C-alpha cells in the first residue's frame, strides 16, 4: 500500500472542497472495497478523507411518502430497517444476497454504489486493463470472460458492476443526492448515475471530482410482489452471474432490472411492457443488443430462465 495522509471530514461540504482541490484524494467510508484495492495498489490515493463521522446515518420518510437513506447507513442496518422490510422488500433481499455479515456491517449505501468491478483482469496488475490503466487494452476480451458483461459492452471494456443493492435501487427508481465542492446540491437518477464503459471505462459514474453522495431517495412504495433472485457459483457470499430484481403487480405488469450483465444495473422500460406476455418476450427486448462472448453466452439463457422463475414465483405468491 502507498503511504497517505489522513483526515476526518468536518462536513460534507468541507470534504467535497478538499477532494475537489486534490485529485489524488479519496473519500473512505466502509473501506471494504477501497482498502482491498489500495493493498493491491490498484487505488493509490495520497490523501484519505474519512467520512465516517458525517451525520448521514438516518433512514427517514420523505415529504412525498418515499424514503431517504443516508449515504453512511450500513448495508446491515438498511436491510434490517422496518420500513425497508415492509415497503421495499426488494431492496432488503438484494442487500442480504450480497457479501458477508462482516462486510455488510461496514459497507455503506453510498460506497456500495461506488464499488469497483471484480473483473479478475482489473485486479491483476500484471495484465493490461483499460479501467485500471486507460489505453493499456482489455484482457477480458479474448480472455476468460465467463463472468463478464453481455450488454452495453464496448471494445475497451466488458466489466460488470458488482452491486446487488444498486440493481434493486434501479428497479425502484432511486435518486442519488450529492453535494459538490461549491456547496451546490443535485439529485441524480440512478438511471443516469452509472456510465457505460465506452472509450473511458475508468470513468464509472457521473460524479464530479470532489462530489460526495449524501443520500439515496426512494419513491413512495409501489407494492406488488418483490423478488430478488440471484444465480451465482456458490450458495452464499459470491457475486452474481446474473440477478433479477422484479416488482410484479397482480395484473402481470411490473418492473425488471438485471444485474451481473452490464457495467451498470440493466433496465429497459420497453422490455417491461412485455412482462404480461411472459419471460421469452421480455427477454427478447431486454437482450436485443446483447454482445456476449463464447464463454458468457449462457447468461442470455439464464436471464430468460430467471425471468420465467420470478414471473411464476410472483403468480404463486399473489394467488
Amino acid at each position: 500500500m502507498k503511504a497517505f495522509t489522513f483526515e476526518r471530514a468536518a462536513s460534507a461540504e468541507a470534504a467535497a472542497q478538499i477532494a475537489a482541490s486534490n485529485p489524488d484524494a479519496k473519500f473512505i467510508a466502509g473501506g471494504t472495497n477501497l482498502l482491498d484495492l489500495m493493498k493491491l495498489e490498484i487505488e493509490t490515493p495520497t490523501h484519505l478523507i474519512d467520512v465516517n463521522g458525517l451525520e448521514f446515518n438516518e433512514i427517514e420518510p420523505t415529504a412525498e411518502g418515499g424514503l431517504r437513506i443516508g449515504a453512511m447507513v450500513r448495508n446491515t442496518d438498511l436491510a434490517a430497517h422496518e420500513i425497508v422490510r415492509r415497503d421495499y422488500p426488494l431492496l432488503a433481499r438484494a442487500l442480504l444476497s450480497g457479501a458477508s455479515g462482516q462486510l455488510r456491517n461496514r459497507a455503506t449505501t453510498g460506497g456500495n454504489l461506488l464499488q469497483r468491478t471484480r473483473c479478475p483482469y482489473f485486479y491483476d496488475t500484471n495484465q493490461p486493463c483499460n479501467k485500471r490503466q486507460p489505453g493499456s487494452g482489455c484482457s477480458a476480451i479474448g480472455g476468460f470472460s465467463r463472468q463478464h458483461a453481455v450488454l452495453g459492452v464496448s471494445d475497451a471494456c466488458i466489466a460488470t458492476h458488482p452491486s446487488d443493492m444498486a440493481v434493486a435501487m434501479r428497479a425502484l427508481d432511486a435518486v442519488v443526492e450529492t453535494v459538490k465542492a461549491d456547496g451546490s446540491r443535485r439529485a441524480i437518477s440512478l438511471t443516469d448515475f452509472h456510465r457505460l464503459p465506452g472509450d473511458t471505462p475508468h470513468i464509472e459514474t457521473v460524479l464530479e471530482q470532489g462530489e460526495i453522495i449524501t443520500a439515496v431517495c426512494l419513491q413512495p412504495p409501489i407494492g406488488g410482489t418483490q423478488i430478488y433472485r440471484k444465480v451465482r457459483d456458490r450458495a452464499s457470499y459470491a457475486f452474481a452471474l446474473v440477478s433479477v430484481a422484479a416488482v410484479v403487480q397482480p395484473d402481470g405488469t411490473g418492473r425488471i432490472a438485471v444485474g451481473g450483465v452490464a457495467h451498470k444495473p440493466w433496465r429497459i422500460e420497453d422490455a417491461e411492457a412485455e412482462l404480461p406476455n411472459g419471460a421469452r418476450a421480455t427477454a427478447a427486448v431486454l437482450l436485443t443488443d446483447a454482445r456476449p462472448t463464447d464463454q458468457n453466452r449462457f447468461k442470455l439463457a439464464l436471464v430468460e430462465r430467471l425471468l420465467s422463475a420470478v414471473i411464476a414465483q410472483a403468480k404463486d405468491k399473489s394467488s
Partner: protein
Amino acid sequence: MNESSKVRLTVNRTSREIHVDNRTTLLDALREHLQLTGTKKGCDHGQCGACTVIVDGRRVNSCLTLAVMNEGAEVTTIEGLGEPGDLHPMQAAFVKHDGFQCGYCTPGQICSSVAMLEEIAADIPSHVTDDLKNKARPTAEEIRERMSGNICRCGAYSNIVDAITEVAETRS
C-alpha cells in the same frame, strides 16, 4: 499533514493508545502493536474471515478497516471473550464439539458466531430468512448462511454449526 497518527482504542475493556502508520489495518494494530495475536491474518482481503473481531458490538473484518478509522472504538478480540480456565460459552462449545482441526480460522469463527447470534437477537434478517416480517431463528440453515464469511480450510463446518447451535439453544 502526517503519514502516521495517534489512535486511542478500547481493546478488551482496556484503554490503549498507539502510534501507527496510517496504512496500518486494525488487524495489524492488534497483532503487531498490541501483541494480541489471537486474531489471525488469513487472506488479508476480507474473503476468509480469519481476522473477524467485534467493533462497537458488530463483527467486522479487521483486515479491511484502518486503525485510524477506529478512533475511540471498543474492540473485542478472541482474548477478550475468554481465556483458558474462563472460557466464553462459544469457546467451550467449539472445544466440546471439535469445531476445528488446525485452529487457524477458529478465533474468527468464534468472534463471528458470538456477534452473529446477537444479530439474530436484534432481528437482523438474512438471505435465507423466509419472511422478512418475522424474526429469524437460529436454525442450521440460518447459521450456515450467516457464517458464510468465515472459511474453514479444514472443513470443520458441521461441527462448527453444532457448537453454535448449542450456544444458541442455551441462550433462548
